[in-house]
């Protein structure tokens, strides 16, 4: 198992290297695009352009350009944004990370717990109206766009019903760091957590239900019943345990994408200055250094979490464990 983990992590490093190369080539070698102009943002003057060319070594060979760029991102970390007046990009991404992690972690806890509850409830109530009803509600949850749900939630909790006892506790939009005021951190995130998790609760609930029902017909579930163990144990220790294999691999991907900036819409709607928000800002300002930093950050997160999921997967399913 240990060699498997080490091998998986080494593989991860290789994948990350390939990603940086690909990202670099896309940003610097897209035909017809002058990278200096792209980096400089809107309406640069000639002096800035010359400065950028020298700094990024744009007149030198390609590997040198790549090396300089990686040095700016990983070693000296002095990649600056031109459209945003000299803000250090890497530091900015790192500063935005806690907000994103807070949002995504909380939502993930919510959606895992509730999706398991929905999946199990639908399975238990199979054959009654409750099961299809639950599935329709889940489908509605999946179909509702997150920015729309967020806006409605804001309208209600910040506007129409804010004065009532129901939502008077909801603080104004924005993110308060946990270290500054834990209570406010929590209160400010409750509505974003719910908003972000609705889609996933619906989706994962439906996937889990389908898996649970499929597993019900497996021979080993019949064996488990024939052993005389309780139905509850059959469901939790046998059906759910094997159904979780799909659930976990899906979860890894979705979670990684969200941490990598995929929660952009939620962050923008609720004014949470996380990585998604930063990406959105950079995109609207055509701020190439920031876009590049968030892209690499995002890709790294996805690859890293994928590695963790693979390790967790091997823990869940002994058949894929190397011996």
């Amino acid at each position, binding site marked *: 198992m240990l060699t498997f983990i080490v091998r998986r992590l080494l593989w991860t490093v290789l994948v990350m290297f390939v990603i940086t190369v690909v990202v670099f080539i896309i940003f610097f070698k897209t035909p017809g695009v002058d990278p200096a102009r792209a980096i400089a943002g809107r309406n640069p003057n000639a002096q800035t352009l010359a400065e950028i060319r020298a700094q990024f070594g744009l007149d030198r060979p390609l590997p040198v350009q790549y090396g300089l760029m990686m040095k700016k991102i990983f070693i000296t970390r002095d990649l600056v944004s031109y459209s945003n007046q000299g803000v250090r990009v890497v530091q900015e991404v790192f500063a935005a990370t806690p907000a994103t992690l807070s949002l995504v972690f909380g939502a993930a806890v919510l959606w895992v717990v509730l999706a398991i509850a929905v999946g199990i409830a639908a399975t238990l109530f199979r054959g009654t109206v409750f099961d299809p009803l639950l599935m329709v509600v889940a489908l509605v949850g999946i179909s509702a766009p997150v920015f729309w749900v967020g806006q409605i939630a804001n309208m209600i909790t910040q506007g129409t019903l804010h004065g009532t006892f129901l939502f008077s506790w909801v603080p104004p939009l924005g993110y308060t760091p946990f270290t500054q005021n834990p209570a406010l951190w929590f209160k400010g995130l409750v509505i974003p957590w719910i908003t972000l998790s609705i889609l996933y609760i619906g989706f994962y609930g439906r996937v889990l239900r389908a898996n649970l029902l499929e597993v019900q017909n497996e021979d080993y579930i019949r*064996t488990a019943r*024939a052993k*005389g*163990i309780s139905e509850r*144990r059959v469901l939790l220790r*046998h059906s759910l345990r094997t159904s979780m294999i799909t659930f976990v691999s899906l979860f890894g991907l979705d979670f990684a994408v969200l941490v990598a900036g995929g929660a952009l819409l939620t962050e923008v709607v609720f004014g949470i200055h996380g990585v998604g928000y930063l990406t959105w800002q950079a995109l609207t300002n055509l701020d190439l250094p920031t876009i590049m930093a968030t892209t690499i950050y995002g890709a790294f997160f996805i690859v890293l979490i994928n590695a963790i999921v693979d390790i967790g997967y091997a823990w869940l399913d*002994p*058949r894929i464990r190397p*011996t």
Partner: protein
Amino acid sequence: MTAPGQAAADTSAEPLLEVRDLKVSFRTEDGTVRAVDGVSLSLAPGETLGIVGESGSGKSVTMLSVMRLITDPNARFEGEVRYKGRDLMQLNRDQIQGVRGAGISMIFQDPMTSLNPVYRVGWQIEEQLRAHQQLSKQAAHARAIELLAAVGIPHPAQRVDDYPHHFSGGMRQRVMIAMAISCNPDILIADEPTTALDVTIQAQILGLIRKLRDDFGTAIVLITHDMGVVADLADRIAVMYAGRIIEQGTRRDIFYDARHPYTWGLLGSIARLDRPKPRRLTTIPGLPPSLLRLPKGCAFGARCPHRFGLCDERPELLDKVGDGHLDACHLDLKQKEDLRETTIHPELIEEAK
């Protein structure tokens, strides 16, 4: 073939398990499928009962119903299953869980899929032990090792911590058997235990089942479509066709004095080395009837070479001679004796010509 040895059970004793007029039907979009249509069986302590029939004849459904393992919400059950003074069909969920795996246990056709792939085999055996007995984790683990040794798994102390995918098919079936006998059940139901295995492994598994029966006196219900398997092991045999038992008797009755044309067909399809080699094995023409629309008369009528007028009425399963050998066929005993050999071995007629 040897005469039934000391394993032959005392069939006159109080039956251990008695199935009375069991009916199982499934509602489907096309109508009601009568999978089991009035089956009555009894099993004496220590006895081995073979249930023979082709796919879809209702043999597995019968025994799965006894265990109450059919969870299909569209299934309907009628009839009684007496075990230790109780009707299993009437037990509540907790009560039936106390019977499963403890009093009656079951092994299945495909050992490759019958064990949970994500748990160690020892864990899976211990789970059953601890469901029925007050055992500590350590005691259950020690017992699991003993059981693996008892079913002939080499190095049980190491193998107990392996996962099912580390075992071959035959070894997995041994694990299944170890699990099934873990709580010393009165009855072991083996549902086609060797069908998915290689021929050499089949013989080993059957030998193991025989040994366990002889050592522990467990009564066995052996479900199979293979006449060779029951010839080896069964004290009594019930032949099923289209959801009903059409003949039932001792192993001798079925193999040397079969009284139903369907049984003749089954016997004719066995390749035998102790008879003149036929040019080809006999087959039974046609297919079993649809369980959605069973014919009014004898279900085998359409395929039977000896069909006559009376066959439009459904024959009852009766002991016409009074020797404990039951059959559901309208032919009289004399006709049966005349027709039997030539139906089983049509090549004898060819030779006579």
